[in-house]
């Protein structure tokens, strides 16, 4: 049951072969079984999920399903507000906070009838590429429990890769959906900026954040994307236009024909700094797309070399301001300073923020505060915005020559837990290929491209499309997925180790 895709589960529900309660219970059992080792979840809501499942079954029985995915359970990254369910953003400072409202994405999942299994682990406030910066302990990669599952949405990717959930929601500010997808052998989509409402998504960097699907197949992502996407009056940056037909595009692509599609290989996103096995899998994917009828062109995006620097000015600047609200005055952690009698509000704020934020969060608050300071603004934040415009222009020029752009999603396969924890720059380099899309607001998907020869770990290929052309991701992604599946004979995740037979790890902090 748990190895079925969301589309297969939806079909089984529609055919009356199973019930949502049965499916939901199977996933809750799986979570109980393996999450001690994986630690994908920060909070599991068995009771709530089963109640939603029972309601879904009633709708199915009455012949009035709320959506195609009615009754298919899902996991939600802990950065989205869920009414009545704890929302911590992986931070100590929000420990115990229970939002009084639902994020729009969550409200749409509920409307569509998807039972919410729980909230998934993440780097604190989505700052990181390994999920090691979670205040509640790291998530482990189901392919190798000593390795990172990517980040910041390692929890969502690991939950899907470990068959703890058929679907999950992630958020992507610089690659936090796509990079975990690549290193766990799953599919992750960052929609066009403004394509999915950010209302209720606790902002890391407002101008970069997007929520999106985390799944095991391209079709499942399309199905989920159609549920969560579309205009929301509560988010003024959401686009007031109907979504293109994504499921149709995925089904069209799965037929395997890419005739007439121009694939642009981005010169700047490959080569030096990329693992040989990752590059080999990427080249193989490009070859398969050509075999399916696509035309390959090389495109150059010279400004992309400045993307990482630009990102690490814009992101901390916005984050430093967003995180100011965590001040112990209204919700979350409150720490009284030890050494002060009758502390003032400012002293309580200081003590709380000191105790409640982790080192990476503090590092970025300091960076952002500096970048926005009077006298430095023009040189840092102002300059970064100009480079951002140049990056958008590079995309525009590239999309004149190609319908989609492709690159490896992440430069390497999953590294070992702790390996890059003391080297922030090495950690930041993981997002080299994914960041440009966030800076320009264009959509991207990561599709598993196979296992790197040297370490047997999954790699991903990234496909990027122009803003609002998310359907192209699904068409090309599904075609590539079909070609690879034909070559592999079975889904990539079938090659992952069997978690049931692994030693239970006790060292995972909960």
């Amino acid at each position, binding site marked *: 049951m748990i190895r079925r895709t969301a589309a297969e589960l939806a079909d089984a529900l529609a055919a009356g072969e199973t019930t949502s309660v049965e499916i939901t219970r199977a996933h809750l059992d799986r979570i109980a079984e393996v999450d001690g080792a994986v630690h994908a979840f920060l909070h599991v809501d068995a009771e709530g999920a089963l109640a939603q499942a029972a309601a879904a079954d009633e709708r199915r029985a009455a012949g009035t399903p709320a959506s195609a995915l009615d009754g298919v359970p899902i996991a939600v990254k802990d950065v*989205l*507000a869920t009414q009545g369910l704890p*929302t911590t*953003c992986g931070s100590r400072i*929000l420990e115990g*906070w229970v*939002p*009084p*409202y639902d*994020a729009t994405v969550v409200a749409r999942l509920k409307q569509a009838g998807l039972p919410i299994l729980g909230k998934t682990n993440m780097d604190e406030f989505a700052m990181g590429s390994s999920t090691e910066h979670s205040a509640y302990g790291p998530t482990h990669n189901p392919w190798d429990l000593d390795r990172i599952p990517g980040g910041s949405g390692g929890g969502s990717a690991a939950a899907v890769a470990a068959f703890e959930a058929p679907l999950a929601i992630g958020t992507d500010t610089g690659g936090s959906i796509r990079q975990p997808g690549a290193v766990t052998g799953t599919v992750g989509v960052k929609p066009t900026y403004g394509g999915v409402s*950010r*209302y*209720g*998504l*606790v*902002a890391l*960097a*407002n*101008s970069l954040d997007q929520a999106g699907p985390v799944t095991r197949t391209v079709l499942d992502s399309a199905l989920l994307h159609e549920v969560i996407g579309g205009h929301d*009056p*509560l*988010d*003024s*940056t959401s686009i007031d236009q109907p979504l293109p037909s994504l499921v149709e595009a995925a089904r069209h692509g799965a037929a395997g024909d890419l005739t007439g599609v121009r694939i642009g290989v981005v010169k700047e996103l490959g080569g030096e700094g990329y693992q040989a096995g990752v590059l080999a899998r990427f080249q193989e994917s490009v070859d398969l797309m050509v075999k399916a009828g696509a035309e390959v062109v090389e495109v150059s995006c010279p400004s992309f070399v400045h993307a990482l620097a630009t990102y690490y000015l814009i992101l901390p*600047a*916005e984050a*430093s*301001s967003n995180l*100011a*609200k*965590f*001040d112990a*005055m*209204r*919700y979350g952690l409150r720490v009284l300073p030890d050494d002060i009698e009758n502390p003032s*509000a*400012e002293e309580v*704020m200081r003590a709380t923020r000191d105790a409640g934020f982790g080192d990476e969060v503090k590092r970025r608050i300091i960076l952002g*505060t500096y970048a*926005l*300071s*009077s006298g430095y*603004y023009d040189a840092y*934040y102002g300059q970064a915005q100009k480079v951002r415009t140049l990056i958008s222009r590079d995309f525009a020029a590239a999309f004149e020559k190609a319908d989609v752009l492709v690159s490896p999603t992440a430069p390497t396969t999953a590294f070992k837990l702790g390996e890059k924890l003391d080297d922030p720059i090495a950690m930041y380099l993981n997002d080299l290929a994914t960041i440009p899309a966030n800076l320009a607001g264009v959509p991207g998907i990561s599709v598993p491209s196979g296992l790197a020869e040297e370490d047997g770990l999954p790699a991903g290929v990234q496909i990027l499309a122009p803003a609002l052309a998310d359907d192209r991701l699904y068409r090309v992604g599904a075609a590539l997925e079909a070609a690879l599946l034909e070559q592999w004979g079975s889904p990539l995740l079938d090659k992952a180790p069997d978690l049931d037979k692994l030693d239970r790890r006790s060292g995972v902090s909960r």
Partner: protein
Amino acid sequence: MTADILVPFDEVLERFDPALGLEVHVELNTASKMFCGCPTEFGAEPNTQVCPTCLGLPGAMPVVNGKAVESAIRIGLALNCEIAEWCRFARKNYFYPDMPKNFQTSQYDEPIAFEGFMDVTVPNEGGDDETFRVEIERAHMEEDTGKSLHVGGATGRIHGAEYSLVDYNRAGIPLIEIVTKPILGAGDRAPEIAKAYVAQLRELIVALGVSDARMDQGSIRADVNLSLSPKGSGVLGTRTETKNVNSLRSVERAVRYEMSRHAGVLDEGHKILQETRHWHEDTGITTSGREKSDAEDYRYFPEPDLVPVAPSREWVDELRGTLPENPTQKRARLQAEWGFSDLEMRDTVGAGALGLVEETIAAGATPQAARKWWLSDMARRANEAGVELTALAVTPIDVARVQALVDEGKINDKLARQVFDGLLAGEGTPDEIVEARGLAIVSDDGALGAAVDNAIAANPDVADKIRDGKVAAAGALIGAVMKEMRGQADAGRVRELILEKLS
């Protein structure tokens, strides 16, 4: 704290030129807040008009109130400003418990309206009206903060308080901040120009109908910037910003005080500290607002959760068509209609009574009667109570009715003042008060005749003078009768009776 050394006002002007700047915050009267749907009514139970957005809960997002943008554009147009074709909101970052997000969503270098002016009417040395042009730098949109209530301690201020409470009902209420360019060349008229500017701006806001415009409730708040430069030097000095000057009279007083204080500091050879100062209504002085005086870096940057505001030119033109009559032109028209002298008109405007007088005339009083009551009696009472004229519990309709009672001979001016006492004490309508207090004039010859006889008997010398033809002496006898009748006698009839009896 040592007392400030104050230089007499006239002496300040012998040696210095003042530069004035005014920042006025106008709280809009939109039904909902600037960035969410919460209601904006004044005086609700604390923290009942709040939602995830105006409480700054994690994940919540702002959406711009279109009505507030409309009001901002109308204010900008009425101030002869350019309206931006494209502008953005910006975050002003600083920590304070009454700011839910620890940043205020405001506008920084891209205000909705800019480069305007307002012609302020003030008298010149000869006493004639003159127009003084105040240049407007910008008018921008922002959200209000919550309100802190400091409990315990004597002053209600944060120092010495046992604990503080915060009411977020006000957080997110739309504000328009209107900033002037430095006002130079005002000389000795700086205090009255400042007052006239705020008074006229308030009138304009009232005419636009975009705010309750109650200074006593804080729906209009003025900050006064002032600096002095050595006379004729043309070099701007260091300025101070005096916050929350919340009545027209205080605007004038605060400018006057700061001019005297700055001169005192400069005379001593010290430098003016660039700082925020607090105005104290009771003592009429300013004190240093140390808490926020350290040069703050607000780290402004464009609000990434909001899309730019880009009002179409068609909309702006449509809004231009909704503007009320320009108050300066309206004043000229009313002055001609009412037959007021420049001085009378100026006093009326200066007292903040133009609208009241207009409404009183509309309710039936003559222009002179309306002016008389509001500028003498009502102004004195408002002054004593330390409130604006509009805050008195006397309406233009009341004043018109009181004057009608005088005109009908039912009461006289002296009794009218007692009616106003009754109105202020909440005793009912003018007619009810006349009735309840027994204030009607006695014109019955029987009662009056007896009193006149008593007065003649008690003042034989005066009676003789009148008999000798010195009719002017009758005043003394009228006074005696009025005293006996406790002011409720019909003075005209008393005079007639005296002259009849002594002819």
